[in-house]
């Protein structure tokens, strides 16, 4: 009995070591190697570079607060909004008064930045994202902001609409996901106009 137990413990121990080598090192390292070989751009984080300097990743949102840029979703990442090093959400329940306060504040911010715009604000501009790093807004949310951006930049609203349309991604295979616009790419395109 004791001998059998001892043998089983020995087997368990060796097996854990073997599987740690196989699934904990060989597997992730081969996948890393193949990933770097076949898809180096994606495996490295889809980085946006400018004159050799990394300006971000096209997959991660960044904070924009000036009127001349499209604003992304509200972010609840730790220490400051869109802190790429610390993903996270508000985790407010719908009955939480803090959620309603935050929504009201954001509503005021949007209306003050563009008082002439009487269209209803798409709710995703007022509610925080899941990762706090959501790179996208819906096309509806982009068009809502177009008048503010156009005024702040002194360009025609049609130009802004064209840029939004150029950067709109539709559902994958017409079914999966939601239509969206990448805010970072949109703002980079705006800056490139001049």
């Amino acid at each position: 009995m004791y001998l059998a137990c001892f043998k089983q413990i020995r087997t368990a121990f060796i097996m854990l070591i073997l599987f740690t080598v196989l699934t904990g090192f060989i597997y992730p390292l081969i996948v890393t190697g193949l990933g770097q070989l076949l898809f180096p751009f994606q495996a490295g984080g889809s980085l946006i570079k400018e004159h050799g300097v990394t300006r971000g990743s096209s997959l991660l949102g960044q904070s924009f607060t000036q009127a001349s840029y499209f604003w992304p979703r509200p972010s609840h990442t730790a220490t400051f909004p869109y802190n790429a090093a610390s993903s996270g959400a508000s985790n407010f329940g719908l009955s939480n008064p803090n959620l309603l306060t935050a929504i009201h504040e954001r509503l005021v911010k949007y209306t003050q930045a563009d008082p002439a715009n009487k269209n209803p604000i798409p709710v995703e501009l007022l509610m925080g994202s899941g990762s706090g790093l959501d790179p996208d807004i819906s096309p509806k949310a982009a068009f809502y902001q177009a008048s503010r951006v156009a005024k702040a930049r002194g360009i025609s609203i049609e130009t802004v609409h064209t840029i939004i349309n150029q950067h709109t991604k539709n559902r994958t295979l017409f079914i999966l996901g939601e239509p969206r616009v990448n805010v970072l790419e949109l703002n980079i395109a705006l800056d490139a106009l001049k």
Partner: protein
Amino acid sequence: MTAIALWQVTLYLLVLLLCVVPLGAYMAKVYQGQPCLLDSINTPLERMIYRLCGIQSQEMDWKQYLRALLFFNIIGLFAVYAVSRLQYFLPLNPEEFSAITPTIAFNTAASFVSNTNWQAYAGENALSYFTQMSALTVQNFLSAATGMAVLVALIRGLSRSETTSLGNFWVDMTRGVLYILLPLAFIFSLILISQGVIQNLKPYEKFTPIVNNATEQIMPMGPVASQVAIKQLGTNGGGFFNSNSAHPFENPNPMTNFLEMLAILLIPAALCYMFGVMINDKRQGWALLAAMLCLFIPLVLGTIAFENTAHPELTQLNIDQSSGNMEGKETRIGTTLSALWAVATTATSNGSVNAMHDSFTPLGGLVLLGLMQIGEVVFGGVGSGLYGMVLMVIMTVFIAGLMVGRTPEYLGKKIEPYEMKMASFAILIMPIFVLLFTAIAAVTPSALSALGNPGSHGLSEILYAFTSMLNNNGSAFAGLNSSNPFYTVLGGLGILIGRYWIMIPILAIAGSLARKKTIPQTAGTLPTHNAFFVILLLCVIIIIAALTFFPVLGLGPIVEYLMLWGFHGH
């Protein structure tokens, strides 16, 4: 509900069901030791593992099987604990993360060894690449293979007669990893990388944001795809990053979202077909799958509808709420696919999230709680879901047997007092501890200080935490500060209780059933593969959970719903 939402659900179910037969048949071959696809690559590797470990692949009785399983898991527990405590001194730690605190390390070790993957830490700010790979990724494979091994032992107990042997634990483990989990994870991780999931060992990347030229920020890096692949396939759910599959590096686009969601249910659904093949009566497997779908589909549609409702306190304002409840949800995924994922992840014991469950509507949150509280038998964890379902079947044939006054039997095996005692034991463990721990937390000041939301939603957070941990799910109402020692320690215990106190009676049942004769079916045998039985089974599942949990659900999500919608809704 929009047409596009229905298409999204239909496409998902269609692809899932198309995979059930091929994968199920393949897994049956793997566990029955028949020749199969990967023999040429794996046979030498398999032989080498057996030789090094001194395994002669002799059959084990249920106690030997259980002992091997427990030894293996306990050593795994210590290994994860040790690695996460020592990570500062180990290689592959470019960010120089220090050791995890003892209580969080205990919770994490229990959590990953038991296929729970509750996360009391924020991945990108706490764990080195070494810990993520050698401790967590490894246990993602091993805990999944352990669950499947127990299921296979139970199936052998049902299909064999007059024997004590249930197979060899080491062989079942090895074949589960080598033939099923590793090849699937390998292919899946490469697909994920091609879509933008990161996979590297570089230090965190410094970058200068577009507008803030002055302040440099950092973004995390790491071997993410290899871990995401197995955490989805093995119903583990432990993400690389704090926000799990809501993080764009774990789930960058609708295609990865679809595939990761498919991976959640892939193996659990295919196991139903494997069950049918291995007991030589495919109808029985289909009946269980049908029962699961009968609960799954309406709950998916319900949750999608709940998440697409407008917030009642915002309807008076100039807000366009047509995209639904977007708090805690990502734009590229949207409310519909967030709801579908949430139902899939709580129906199984996966627990990965692509949206924050804490911010779901009260009724949406109620569905997620309910799916875990029925014992995660709708698909369920790899292995653990189906053996949980077989417990429910035993309960059902017993109740049906009482009604017609015959000895209950399942698949030609008489269900006698011993099996019933073990089944009741296994079914009662989870609710007893969920309710007990929730009650203790509700009167403990340090536990209440961890809450992220006031009022009835706070109670839901506690209830969700213990429901998730006792059912080895791992998702959370994450407003609750899960690094609080009260939850790490009590929850860690709950995780171990929820995993092993259920596995032990399951293996005892398997051992007892294997010893019995298989009796031939007669006209008086209750058929267990028809619609009537499926309905009976569903009733038993729902009644058991409703009787146990309705009062506390009434105080949590139902009160919250009534307060929000009752005051403002109409």
